[in-house]
């Protein structure tokens, strides 16, 4: 195997047990707009004192219960550490979320592919620059939507 593991082709369409529990409709747990990290303002009311989820773009598609188990009760920012440009701005925004919006916690949701850890790096740099300290959690999601690890960093 060679090439970037983040863009390697993998097909798991044969996977069994894909039914789950399909009864009932699922309301969206999103309570804000915009959500892209370049577009959001740390001064937006929906961030003040909140628990914030910083999610890599791909996560919401991989994680079957993203809304119910992760987004619910949190404010959201999304970004792609591999493709997005001007990520220094991201670092400043994270810092501002911590210092100005005085967010309660930051949870970073990333995919297992190596390049996705860049988002953790961005968040860490922002948190280190901030003068306030808050708990930061990292959750790594497998390609098939399984949770690989969940830890405070």
């Amino acid at each position, binding site marked *: 195997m060679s090439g970037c593991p983040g863009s390697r082709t993998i097909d798991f369409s044969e996977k069994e047990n894909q039914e789950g529990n399909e009864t009932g409709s699922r309301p969206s747990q999103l309570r804000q707009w915009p959500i892209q990290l370049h577009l959001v303002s740390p001064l937006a009311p929906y961030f003040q004192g909140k*628990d914030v989820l910083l999610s890599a773009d791909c996560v919401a598609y991989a994680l079957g219960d993203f809304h119910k188990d992760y987004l619910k*009760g949190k404010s959201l920012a999304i970004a792609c550490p591999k493709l997005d440009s001007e990520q220094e701005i991201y670092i400043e925004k994270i810092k501002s979320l911590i210092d100005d919006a005085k967010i*309660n*916690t930051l949870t970073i949701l990333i995919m297992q592919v190596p390049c996705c850890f860049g988002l953790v790096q961005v968040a860490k740099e922002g948190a280190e620059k901030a003068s306030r*300290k808050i*708990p930061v*959690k990292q959750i790594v999601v497998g390609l098939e939507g399984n949770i690989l690890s969940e830890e*405070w960093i």
Partner: protein
Amino acid sequence: MKNALNKEIKDIIQDYPEVGRILEEYGIGCSPCSVGSCLLKDIVGIHNLDPQQEAILMYRIEKAIYPDRDVPEPKVDLTKKQAPKQISYSPPVKKLVDEHGLIKRLLALIPHIVEYIENSVNVDKELVLQCVDFIRAYADKYHHMKEEDILFKYVDNNAEIIQIMYKDHDTGRNHVRQVIEGAEKGNKAQIREHLLAYRELLMQHIKKEDEILYPWIDRQLSVTQVGEMFKQCTEADASVGDELPKKYERFIIELEEKFLQEVA
């Protein structure tokens, strides 16, 4: 078995000592516990065994209590490797675990201090009172107060395990009072007895917190609560200032230089 689950552990162990031995095999040390009023069902829950281990444990306890009963042996998949247990604490709890580190360094010095006092003509009152000051200001005020005023408030305060922690804190305070009295009177035996008892008490107490209580509390906390608790602990620390923990760390380093120099 339902009846047994709702019984206090000390009664069960009294009637069936084998149960105490089985629990010990699983690292659950109820036999030496001074209180023993936890219910069997809570004990098993609080220790967070993996489901397979728990099934075997419950089977063995039931067999020990009701040897004549036809209890089905749990099916256990031995091919399933057990994940190594590594405790991952939330940040506010991790801070408390780190504080235990400095307290344990004093506990490690106590036998040396006791020996030094025994071998000197007059009791070094100042040294004893300095240790008391560390225990009162750092271990008790700085550390135990965060546990009592913040951490314990996030779980059911009436839970047996929390009551035991409060009791340990109180017992520790009593030992400290005795140590002070010993120092005032120049009573070496009194100082020795209560410093060593304090050491034994706190070693067990810290082990219970690090390995059982703190992980149990962490498992019940939501992300939001972790953030709130972190904020409360940070504010509590800020109210005493940065200098206090630094001062007591310097004190421990000085003691270590004085009493552990032969090791270095």
